[in-house]
């Protein structure tokens, strides 16, 4: 397989200015991650520790295999909202005794671990990942149930969580609840729906209604322990399978439960891992600070693929999109990477063929997005760009091999769809901090609205207020700029996280390994292709 040769000059002005800009973006990301880690803030963290409890991330760190990786998902959920960054829950993929699992851990320091609409969105996303990739689920429960003031946005969709848990079980995907604290009201159904339950003596509390609610409902006087203590559930109700003496004991039991599954991954095993020839951290200087400046996907691939080896498919055709095969952390992958941003008919056709071929040989696909969308214009419309774009979208939508998408820069227009944006249900989707996702670029969108406004004025025969238009255009541009910002998209859980470009290879390695828990099999038949 040919080896990519990097031509990046790490002393060039371009490299250094990209590096400076991306480092600044990364700093912003780290600041927000710090906010997420701080949970409910210093006061509630301190109170939590005074009660002898570990934080949710400490629990995860003790639960996973020493030295193993933990990929936290959606860490910026609820960014840009009134809720705490991270949405009072930690989700992610970690390894217990060599078994890759999805973790869902309530952050008990944020409003008692109660769930707001973003919490549920983030948890449901984690369960969706568990289902698609056949990953066992470990819940680290410490939640007072719904955040009642937001119940209107929460109550109805929240029920899906319990449905998902039991459907996972039915699919042969084990689910575990380690109950570290309250798991009350609706939250009680998390242990209720899980295959395995561990409760901690004098700490776990699992009931539908607490003593005040019971008193209100039936007049019965009762205690927490009688209604939902760990010992009661372990010895009387039988809801708990294991009674742990403390948090460490619960974590030990959680690890022990996983060993009992004799878990086997269904996908092919990876080949030996070979490092790339180039340092992945150089991606920080390669990714353009200015999204209008395209950058070479070969420089990216030289820092992602094993041995920097890439076998390009159709290199002379549809040259605005690079397609080809390589190996990443030992897994064979097909790559689709934007080169010059815009997608023409040739690129769409090439992508269609490439996706079909990858399905034919059961090879997972990696989409590296930096696209401004499909070409527009008379000759292109007449040449059938819609049909070509439709073929690509058809191929992506019906492809059955695992897809993993990374938004490196621009993700505009139907290019987002064709390159397997979130709506195309990739197994995982990550974004670099400097990326933007929107129907089109902010200035284009504002300009379009301005033209439309001008035409409407002309048609109505009224005067066009230039000053007003300029102000409105600027306002719209600012709004789109804000709403296409990667953190904003991540806050809405439209991706699985913003990642350090230098970590891309590692994140792809973890997620490729995760997808191989399930069968890796391509689509053999396809929808009708509009020629």
């Amino acid at each position, binding site marked *: 397989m040919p080896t990519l040769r990097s031509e990046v000059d790490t002393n060039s002005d371009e490299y250094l200015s990209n590096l400076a800009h991306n480092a600044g973006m990364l700093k912003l990301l780290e600041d927000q*991650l710090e906010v*997420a*880690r701080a949970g409910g803030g210093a006061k509630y963290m301190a109170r939590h520790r005074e009660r002898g409890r570990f*934080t949710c*991330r*400490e629990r995860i*760190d*003790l639960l996973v*295999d*020493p*030295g*193993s*990786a*933990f*990929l*936290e998902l959606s*860490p910026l959920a609820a960014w840009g909202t009134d809720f705490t960054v991270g949405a009072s829950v930690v989700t992610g993929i970690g*390894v217990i005794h*060599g*078994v*890759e699992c999805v973790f869902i851990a309530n952050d008990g320091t944020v409003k008692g671990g109660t769930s707001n609409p973003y919490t549920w969105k983030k948890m449901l996303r984690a369960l969706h990942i568990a289902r698609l990739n056949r990953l066992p689920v470990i819940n680290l429960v410490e939640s007072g149930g719904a955040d009642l003031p937001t119940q209107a946005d929460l109550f109805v969709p929240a029920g899906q969580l319990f449905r998902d848990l039991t459907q996972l079980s039915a699919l042969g995907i084990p689910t575990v609840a380690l109950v570290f604290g309250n798991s009350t009201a609706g939250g009680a159904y998390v242990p209720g729906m899980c295959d395995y339950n561990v409760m901690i*003596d*004098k700490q776990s509390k699992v009931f539908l209604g607490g003593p005040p609610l019971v008193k209100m409902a039936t007049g019965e006087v009762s205690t927490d322990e009688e209604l939902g203590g760990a*010992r009661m559930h372990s*010895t*009387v109700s039988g809801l708990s399978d294991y*009674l*742990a*003496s*403390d948090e*460490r*004991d619960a*974590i*030990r039991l959680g*690890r*022990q439960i996983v060993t009992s599954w004799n878990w086997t*991954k269904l996908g092919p095993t*990876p080949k030996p*891992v070979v*490092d790339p020839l180039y340092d992945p*951290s150089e991606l920080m200087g390669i990714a353009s600070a200015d999204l209008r400046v395209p950058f070479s996907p070969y420089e990216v691939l030289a820092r992602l693929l094993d041995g920097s080896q890439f076998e390009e498919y159709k290199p002379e055709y549809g040259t605005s999109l690079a397609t080809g095969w390589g190996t990443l*952390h*030992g897994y064979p992958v097909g790559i689709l990477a934007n080169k010059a941003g815009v997608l023409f008919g040739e690129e769409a056709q090439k992508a269609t063929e490439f996706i079909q071929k990858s399905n034919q040989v059961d090879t997972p696909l990696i989409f590296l997005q930096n696209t401004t969308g499909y070409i527009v214009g008379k000759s292109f419309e007449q040449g059938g760009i819609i049909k070509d774009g439709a073929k690509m979208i058809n191929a992506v939508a019906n492809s059955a091999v695992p897809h993993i998408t990374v938004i490196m820069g621009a993700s505009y227009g139907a290019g987002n769809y064709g390159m397997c944006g979130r709506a195309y249900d990739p197994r995982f989707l990550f974004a670099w901090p400097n990326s933007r996702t929107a129907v089109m670029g902010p200035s284009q969108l504002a300009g379009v609205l301005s033209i439309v406004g001008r035409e409407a004025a002309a048609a109505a025969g009224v005067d066009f207020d230039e000053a007003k238009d300029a102000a409105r255009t600027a306002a719209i541009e600012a709004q789109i700029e804000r709403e296409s910002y990667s953190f904003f998209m991540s806050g809405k859980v439209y991706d699985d*996280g913003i*990642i*350090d470009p*230098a*970590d891309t290879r*590692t*994140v792809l*390695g*973890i997620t490729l*390994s995760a997808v191989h828990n399930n069968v890796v099999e391509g689509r053999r038949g396809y929808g009708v292709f509009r020629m």
Partner: protein
Amino acid sequence: MQKILIANRGEIARRVIRAARELGIRTAVVYSDADADSLFVQEADEAVRLEGTAAADTYLVASLILDAAAKVGADAIHPGYGFLSENADFAEECVKAGLTFIGPPPAAIRSMGDKVTSKEIMAANGVPTLQGVTVTDVSAGGDAQDLQAALAGIGLPAIIKASAGGGGRGMRIVNSADELLSAVESAQREAVAAFGNGTVFIERYISPSRHIEVQIVADAHGQVAALFERECSIQRRHQKVVEEAPSPVVDEAWRAKLLEAAIKAARAVDYRGAGTVEFIAGNDGTFAFLEMNTRLQVEHPVTECITGLDLVQLQIAVARGEALPPEAMNPTITGHAIEVRLCAEDPAAGYLPVSGTFDLFEVGGDGIRVDTGVETGSEVSPYYDSMIAKVIAHGPTRSAAAGRLADALSRARLHGITTNRDLLVRILRSPEYLAGDTTTDFLDRVEGLTAPLTDEPTHRQHAVIATIALAARRAADRSVQPGLPIGWRNNRATLEIVELKGEGDPIKVAYNLQRGAPVIEVDGKPVIVEIHSAGSELVDATIGGVRRRYRVHLTGVGGLDGALVDGVGGASAFSVVDPLPAPGSSVPAGGLIAPMPGSVVRVMVAEGDTVTAGTPLLVLEAMKMQHTITSPGDGVVTALNVTAGTQVERGTVLVELSDPAAE
């Protein structure tokens, strides 16, 4: 001689096997149950089990040895050292059984076995001995002149000891003839006061004293080879620790006298075979006969090193009736050799013997000879001598040999059992040793020898190295995600923590090795570490500005239970503290409930009783079966809710236990 039965074990059995094999002679050994898996049993051509473990039941039972010899058809017995090697009756029985005893004639063993007799024989044959005079009473007067005459025969300085006593009471040292009378008188007064008996004994006082011995080999043809002296002054509890040849203080003239005395001693008892004549000596060249060891000595290798002779092969040759070869009769000294006795013992704890298993046993190097009975994985039983190896260095000079030996010992990888390695290295590197100031009081006199070689900062460095090696092993053994950076996080909340238990307090190492410069904290303090290469066997790292290569051996299941680290600064052994409790180690406290409805038949505890896991608490009868309720853990009975005869429902709390952890 076709087959030798070796009536010994450990390194000396292997030593004899090696010599015999070079001569084309087969070997058989006997072994106790404790030695069933030992190296010497594996190396011998044949082996006969001796049931039991204690020496008195096995290696010391002459009849069992002779039976074994008959069983394997041996025609000779090599007794090694210790055990039956100086047992004249055994030697006699061997001969009676038609076996060649590779050792001296029984008569020589016998005459040298008795201290009084041997001294008399030696004195009669012109070998210097420590002569003494017993003085019953001088206060009667008139005997002063006799005393002076006696002193002339003894020499100065002299020591006066109470015959009845001990503990230094009544002891006087006399440095000049003038002091003699008053010293004897005061010693007698003190002896009377202390023991009611004024009898004192005057003999030559040699202090500081050295232990110098001469190796001899005599054949049946009247030849006696004197293979120079060895000095073995450094001793603890009368056991030699460091031995060397030649002695650092013996010059040519002195040596000639020593060898002459040794040859006289051998001839006096019609000696045959290898033997050692031991002398007590002063720094001034005086020496006197102590005893003769009628066997091969532990420390024989130093003589072999400097003479190039194989003493075991010479023993066999003599036993076969051959004449000593010219090279034995005209030996020369080449360089200097030093031997140390590596023992499974704790010098800091009064040389307490230690038993256990060697997780790692690697010792050697250029110019280093190692005679040992153990290897990595060997078990050291508490039944026999604590010596596990002799490490010998041969060099052109004494300082070269000492340096080489200290270096080899400090590089040796000895883990799993405490040894005296650090003490040996400190002795060999001490200015006193290097100056040849090796007298029998060496270990009492020289301070700081029992301090461990590995200091606290090095130990902490080793904890860092152990952490890195453990992480490398875990990374290498990953069943999924094999190529990922160690402990990678995209949102790091905590550092990974490993708690290592070694000497002293456990050390907590917090670390993150994921990319670029590793972050490492030892007990909360940051340590700047650059890792050049990290494996589970070798870690090459710069700590504190110095790059070193550390050798690591990981122990336990999957190599994750412990780490043995060896570096230039010493050695550390760590076990990994599991951050999670062992199953069942923390059973929740609280009430014990009735598993089914029934009646209490019997109650075995009372409130306030301390119980341990498994203690029967009460017996419950249900459905014609009796169920014993036992304590799930350690604790105190805080409440007893039932008595014999109480009918209980399922779920009734019978007994409440306290949480022992909370107390």
